[in-house]
C-alpha cells in the first residue's frame, strides 16, 4: 500500500488505539493535519499548546491509556515543554507529536525551527527525530511501547515536514506495521522490569509479619501499576495502615478503617507521625519525595524499609532500603500477599500491634484535620467549600486540581473512594494544570462528573481552554477558590518572611470571573456567603450541556495546616494554632 508519511503517522496512531488527540496545527505539522480529516480519531483543537499537553495528561490519569498531543514546530513545541516535564515527573504515559522544519532546513535557524529533541531530552522518557517516512510506523510503535511500559512517561516524536508532505517525493512510503517482537528487538537497551526477586519478596514478607509498627507508604506507582485491588488485599490481610501520597490519593479508600490519608508537608498529623514512628515502611511505588520525607536525615528514624519500585534508580536514591524489590508493583504486591499467606498458614506469629493501633487512634482523635469556624462577616472558608462540594457529588467524581493551597485542601478534605479519581500535578507543581487536565479527564471518562478545583492564580494561566471545552461540548465544572492571592506564596511570606507580602496580591474582582466564564461559553456563578455555597454547587451539578465556573470568594488569611516547614523534620509538624494548646504541636512527637 502506498501512502505518504502524514497518512502513515495518523494510521499508526489509529493502530495504537488512539481515540482522541489534543492539538493545534501550524506550518510544519500541516501535512499531518490533512489526514486527520479522514481519521476515526477525535481531534480536540486547543487554544494553547500547553492546554493540549495537560489535556493529554488528564486523559491518561483518568483512563490509564496514553494521552496523545500534536503540535507544530518551534513555539508550538516549546509551549508543550511544561506538560512534558509535568508528565515526566508524575510518570504519566503520553505521546507527543511535534512538527519540525524540513530535513534540509534543520540547523539553519529556519522559521519556527527549534531543537525540540534537544530541549526535551531531560523532560521526556525518550524522544525521537524521525528522518525517513518509512520509519514512522516503527517509531510510533516504539513511542507507545516506551510511554506505557516500565515506569510510564512522556515520549516525543519530532517529524520533519518533508517526510510527511505529499508534494515531496521523500514522503512516499509503503505500510509496514512492525510486530511486537520487532519492536522489542529494535530497542535493545529497553527492558522494563516485571516480576520481582522471589527471595526479596520472602524477606519482605518476613519483615512485614515481624513488624510492630508497620505502615504501607503508597505512592503513585500503585496506580500506574493498576495495583489498587492487590494493595487492598495486602492491607486487609496484614491489617496494616495505609498512607496515600499526593500522587496516590484514591489508591486506597479514604473511608477504610486502615486508611490514614495523606502524609507529607501538608499531610494530616496521623499520617505524618505514623510514618515517623514506624518500625517498618512498606514503600510501594513511592519515591521518598522531599515533600513527604521532610528533612531526610530525620525521616522515620526507627523504620526498616521495604521499597518496591519498577524504576531501579528509585531504590536507594533517597533512603537506602533494607529490602529493595525491583519490578512491577502489582505483581510484587500479589506475590507479597501469597508469601504472607503461606507464612501465616505455617504458623507465623505477628507481634501484638494493639498498642500501635491505639496510639494511631489517639493521634486521629486529638489531631483531626480541622479549621476554625468562620465568624460572622468572614469570607468563605475554602475547606468548608470543599466539604460542601465533596458531599454534593457522586462518589466516583473525578477531581482535578491546580497547584497551591487549593490543591492541598482538595487532597485533604476530599474523600477519595476510587482509584483514578484524582488528577493533579504533584512533582512539577504546574500552576494552570487543572482546567485542561479536567477537560482531558472528561474526554476520557464522559460518564463521570468532573470537577476542577482551582485557585484564582492558576485559573488565570490556562482558563482559555474553557473555550475549547465549550466548543467541543465537554461539560467540566470548575470551582475557583478566589482568595485574591497567590495563596501558598502568601502563606510562606506570612510564616517565613515576616508577613512581607511581595508580589502576591491578585485582586478579587479583576478579572470578573463570572463574566469571563460567560464570555467563554460557560455558565458563571459566584458565591460569596456561606448560604450561597450549596445552591451554587447544586446549580452547577444540574448543568450538563456546557462547562460551569463557580467562583467562591474565600478568606485569604486561611492557611494550609498541618505544615512541616521546608527543610524541617517531620517531627516539627505544625498543627493549626487552635489545636496546638497544651504543649502540642511543634516537636510534639509521638505522645
Amino acid at each position: 500500500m502506498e501512502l505518504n508519511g502524514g497518512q502513515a503517522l495518523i494510521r499508526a496512531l489509529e493502530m495504537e488505539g488512539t481515540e482522541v488527540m489534543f492539538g493545534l496545527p501550524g506550518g510544519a505539522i500541516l501535512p499531518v493535519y490533512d489526514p486527520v480529516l479522514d481519521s476515526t480519531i477525535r481531534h480536540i483543537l486547543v487554544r494553547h499548546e500547553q492546554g493540549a499537553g495537560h489535556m493529554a495528561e488528564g486523559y491518561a490519569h483518568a483512563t490509564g491509556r496514553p494521552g496523545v498531543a500534536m503540535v507544530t514546530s518551534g513555539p508550538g513545541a516549546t509551549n508543550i515543554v511544561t506538560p512534558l516535564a509535568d508528565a515526566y515527573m508524575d510518570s504519566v504515559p503520553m505521546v507527543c507529536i511535534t512538527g519540525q522544519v524540513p530535513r534540509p532546513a534543520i540547523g539553519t535557524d529556519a522559521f519556527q525551527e527549534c531543537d525540540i529533541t534537544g530541549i526535551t531530552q531531560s523532560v521526556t522518557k525518550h524522544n525521537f527525530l524521525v528522518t525517513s517516512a518509512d520509519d514512522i510506523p516503527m517509531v510510533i510503535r516504539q513511542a507507545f511501547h516506551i510511554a506505557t511500559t516500565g515506569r510510564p512517561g512522556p515520549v516525543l516524536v519530532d517529524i520533519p515536514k518533508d517526510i510527511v508532505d505529499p508534494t515531496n517525493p521523500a514522503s512516499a512510503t509503503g505500510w509496514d506495521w512492525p510486530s511486537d517482537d520487532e519492536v522489542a528487538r529494535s530497542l535493545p537497551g529497553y527492558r522494563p522490569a516485571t516480576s520481582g526477586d522471589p527471595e526479596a519478596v520472602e524477606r519482605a514478607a518476613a519483615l512485614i509479619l515481624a513488624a510492630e509498627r508497620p505502615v504501607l507508604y503508597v505512592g503513585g506507582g500503585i496506580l500506574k501499576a493498576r495495583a489498587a485491588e492487590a494493595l487492598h488485599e495486602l492491607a486487609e490481610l496484614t491489617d496494616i495502615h495505609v498512607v496515600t501520597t499526593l500522587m496516590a490519593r484514591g489508591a486506597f479508600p479514604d473511608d477504610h478503617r486502615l486508611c490514614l490519608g495523606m502524609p507529607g508537608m501538608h499531610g494530616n498529623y496521623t499520617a505524618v507521625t505514623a510514618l515517623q514512628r514506624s518500625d517498618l515502611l512498606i514503600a510501594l511505588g513511592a519515591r521518598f519525595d522531599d515533600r513527604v520525607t521532610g528533612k531526610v536525615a530525620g525521616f522515620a528514624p526507627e523504620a526498616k524499609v521495604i521499597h518496591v519500585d519498577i524504576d531501579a534508580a528509585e531504590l536507594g536514591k533517597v533512603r537506602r532500603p533494607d529490602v529493595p524489590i525491583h519490578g512491577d508493583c502489582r505483581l510484587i504486591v500479589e506475590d507479597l500477599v501469597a508469601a504472607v499467606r503461606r507464612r501465616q498458614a505455617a504458623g507465623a506469629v505477628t507481634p501484638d500491634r494493639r498498642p500501635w493501633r491505639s496510639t494511631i487512634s489517639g493521634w486521629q482523635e486529638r489531631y483531626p484535620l480541622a479549621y476554625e469556624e468562620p465568624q460572622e462577616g468572614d469570607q468563605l472558608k475554602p475547606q468548608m467549600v470543599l466539604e460542601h462540594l465533596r458531599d454534593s457529588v457522586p462518589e466516583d467524581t473525578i477531581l482535578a486540581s491546580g497547584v497551591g493551597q487549593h490543591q492541598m485542601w482538595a487532597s485533604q478534605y476530599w474523600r477519595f473512594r476510587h482509584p483514578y479519581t484524582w488528577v493533579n500535578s504533584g512533582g512539577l507543581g504546574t500552576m494552570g494544570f487543572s482546567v485542561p487536565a479536567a477537560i482531558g479527564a472528561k474526554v476520557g471518562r464522559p460518564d463521570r462528573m468532573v470537577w476542577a478545583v482551582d485557585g484564582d492564580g492558576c485559573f488565570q494561566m490556562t482558563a482559555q481552554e474553557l473555550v475549547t471545552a465549550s466548543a467541543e461540548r465537554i461539560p467540566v465544572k470548575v470551582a475557583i477558590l478566589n482568595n485574591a492571592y497567590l495563596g501558598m506564596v502568601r502563606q510562606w511570606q506570612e510564616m517565613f518572611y515576616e508577613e512581607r507580602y511581595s508580589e502576591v496580591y491578585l485582586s478579587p474582582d479583576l478579572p470578573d470571573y463570572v463574566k469571563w466564564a460567560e464570555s467563554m461559553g460557560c455558565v458563571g456563578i459566584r458565591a460569596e456567603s456561606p448560604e450561597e455555597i450549596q445552591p451554587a454547587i447544586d446549580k452547577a451539578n444540574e448543568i450538563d450541556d456546557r462547562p460551569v465556573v463557580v467562583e467562591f470568594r474565600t478568606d485569604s488569611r486561611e492557611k494550609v495546616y498541618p505544615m512541616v516547614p521546608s527543610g524541617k523534620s517531620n517531627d516539627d509538624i505544625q498543627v493549626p494554632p487552635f489545636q496546638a494548646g497544651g504543649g502540642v504541636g511543634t516537636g510534639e512527637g509521638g505522645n
Partner: protein
Amino acid sequence: MPTRTSGTRRDAGPGHEVRHHVLSVLVENRSGVLARVANLFSRRGYNIVSLAVAPTEDEQFSRITIVVDVESSPLEQIVKQLDKLVNVVDISELDPRHSVERELLLASITAPADRRGQVVELVQIFEGRILAVTHDELTVSLEGHPTKVDDFEEMLRPFGILEIQRTGRVALPRLDHLGAAAVPDAS
C-alpha cells in the same frame, strides 16, 4: 605522595585525592546518543574526566569509556540513571585491577638542536614514537597505560610543551578476570 591517577594529576594534591571510576557503556550507534549520555552527567552535576567513543565490532553499537570523578554512592545512582536511557544497552564499571586500560597522547615539544637528543632519548625510554621533526620542534606520540602516559607528560613538561592532546582512556575487562587464560599485560 598521593597515588597518581591518570588525567587528574593536577587536582589531586596531597590529601586531596579524587576517586575515579571507569564506566564502559555499550550504546546504540545512532545520532544524539552521546549527547544524551553527556547530558545526564552534567544535569546531575558530575564531572566527566575523560570520554572516548567509537563503534564496536558490531556497527549497530558503540562503546563509550567514561572516567568520572564521583564518590561510590552517587555513582550507583548515575549508573542506574544511565541504564534508564533507552539507547544504553549495557553498562559495566571497570575495576582498574581487573581491566586493561590504554590512552594515546600526542604532543608537540620545543626541541632545539642542543636538546633534541634528550627528548628523543625520553621517547625511546617510554617506547613512544616521533611523528614529525622541524628545526626546533618535535611531535611525539605515546600509547600506553594512562599512568604511564601521565609520567611521560610529566617528563616532557620541562622541555616546553607547545600543544598536547590526550584521547582519554579506553578500557576493556581483563581476560583473566573473565576466566580465560592469563595474558601478560605490558602495563
